[in-house]
């Protein structure tokens, strides 16, 4: 793999990590967040300001960066998760705008819109990213098939009924929001390590919206659907970058492309590509059995 391909793979993995977090929030709990990019921003800036100004080594700084995100999520979550879901969604939009603006406010330290560049180089970043991606997906998959997953799906369908089984809906929501935000922080750190440059515009509203688009494209009830769509849709515009349309690279049409995909999905498969199905080994073995059967039948005919 050349450098470009490695970079692209890392970028897609970062997208998979964030979408996995958003899956826990939106897919499991039904909380619509349009501000997860803000947590990527907190993770990235938090970590690399610490490495630069406090001289802390990367790994402890990264942990502190995630901790900063956790604290923000805890405060924001506690204040807003008692609101109705639509108000919570509105609040996350505000948060998603506020955090990147803070970067500009503190330009003295963050270098503002010019971008922050003193980011250490890490060798073998691709392996670290792949490892973290697998770990995060593994954890969220386990979460889905645990008592937490069931309680989340229960409160997503019917909060009142969930409460009548003793489930503390508010506390559970705060927990999942913190978890999703911590995951976004990790993704933000990896994103910064890959680019070795961050500025406030990278973590804007469009990035948060992109995550939701990927999630709904793959199927908000399917973790594997979300993971696959996050990876593929992130890669797609970059693969198509040499294709020209009206003299402009397809990469520039990224958002338009996503919008068209969303419209198609919402009209023809509202539950997303995968619906509620998960890609698992049983599914794969069933598929291979089907193919075997089909080829066997053809062989018989011949």
């Amino acid at each position, binding site marked *: 793999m050349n450098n470009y391909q490695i970079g692209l793979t890392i970028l897609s993995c970062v997208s998979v990590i964030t979408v996995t977090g958003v899956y826990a929030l939106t897919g499991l709990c039904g909380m619509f967040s349009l501000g997860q990019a803000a947590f990527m921003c907190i993770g990235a800036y938090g970590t690399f300001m610490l490495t630069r100004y406090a001289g802390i080594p990367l790994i402890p700084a990264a942990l502190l960066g995630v901790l900063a995100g956790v604290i923000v999520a805890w405060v924001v979550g506690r204040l807003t998760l008692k609101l109705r879901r639509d108000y919570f969604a509105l609040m996350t939009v505000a948060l998603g705008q506020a955090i990147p603006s803070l970067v500009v406010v503190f330009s003295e330290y963050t270098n503002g819109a010019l971008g922050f560049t003193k980011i250490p180089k890490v060798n073998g970043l691709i392996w670290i990213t792949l490892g973290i991606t697998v770990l995060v997906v593994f954890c969220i998959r386990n979460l889905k098939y*645990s*008592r937490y997953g069931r309680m989340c799906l229960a409160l997503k*369908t019917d909060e009142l009924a969930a*409460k*009548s*089984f*003793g489930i*503390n809906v508010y506390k559970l929501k705060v927990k999942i929001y913190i978890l999703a935000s911590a995951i976004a922080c990790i993704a933000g750190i990896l994103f910064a390590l890959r680019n070795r440059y961050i500025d406030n515009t990278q973590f804007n509203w469009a990035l948060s919206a992109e995550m939701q688009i990927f999630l709904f494209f793959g199927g908000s009830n399917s973790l594997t659907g979300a993971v696959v769509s996050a990876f593929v849709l992130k890669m797609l515009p970059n693969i198509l970058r040499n294709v020209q349309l009206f003299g402009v690279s397809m990469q520039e049409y990224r958002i338009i492309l996503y919008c068209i995909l969303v419209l198609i999905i919402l009209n023809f498969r509202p539950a997303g590509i995968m619906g509620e199905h998960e890609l698992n080994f049983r599914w794969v073995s069933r598929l291979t059995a089907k193919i075997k059967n089909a080829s066997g039948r053809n062989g018989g005919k011949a």
Partner: protein
Amino acid sequence: MSNVVLKTEGISKSFGGVKAVQQFSMELHEHEIKGIIGPNGAGKTTIFNLLSHIILPDEGKIFLLGEDIENKSQEEVAQMGLSRTFQSIRLFAGLNVLDNVKVGLDNEGKYNLFDAMFLTPRRWKEEKRIHNAAMECLTMLNLEKYKDYRSNNLPYGIQRRVEIARAIVSRPKILLLDEPAAGLLPEEVFELIDFIRLIKEKFELSIIVIEHRMDLIMNLCSEILVQDFGKTIACGTPKELQCDPRVLAAYLGEEE
């Protein structure tokens, strides 16, 4: 006389000018089935919502297992052992029947988020316990053959029974049934009567049931409260109430 498990002292609730429940007092004894009947808008479901603390009373006290629940949230009341079903079926549509029943146990599951994500031995042990308890409950109620079905694909009568199974899997002390026979066919109502008797015996429950179907109420309950416009207008055994003129008046209108 056996123990009183649930007691209310003069609870009232108004919605604006509508006095939905006025001075409602009752005592529910251990292993008793009590019925609440009354025409539409008599405040029956409001009583259930007050008892399960979904809404709070304007005045009066509720004692659950001898404890005043004034400062408890809906979740805490549920955790204390008061479980309920809803007038319209509120199964979790995204989950299958087995998982729906498991939700009834999940809040008491003894493993945390970390265990859940990293599959620790504690998680496996607890999941196994929850699975076994849910399966035991489904088997006891003859519902195990539906365990993998999506709840919204099942016939109405089965959904009702799954909802009751989910409410009792955590072994509550008190079960509130809000119109369990609504929308059922006559033969299904008789099945439901046997079903409610069965769960009362097997799960040692005290039950309050709201219902319009007289056959169900008359067959099951040892005592019946008649509500009309928020007030208790009569109270007694099924036999006593069958010919009570006040009850007939509330249900059928005054005789000319």
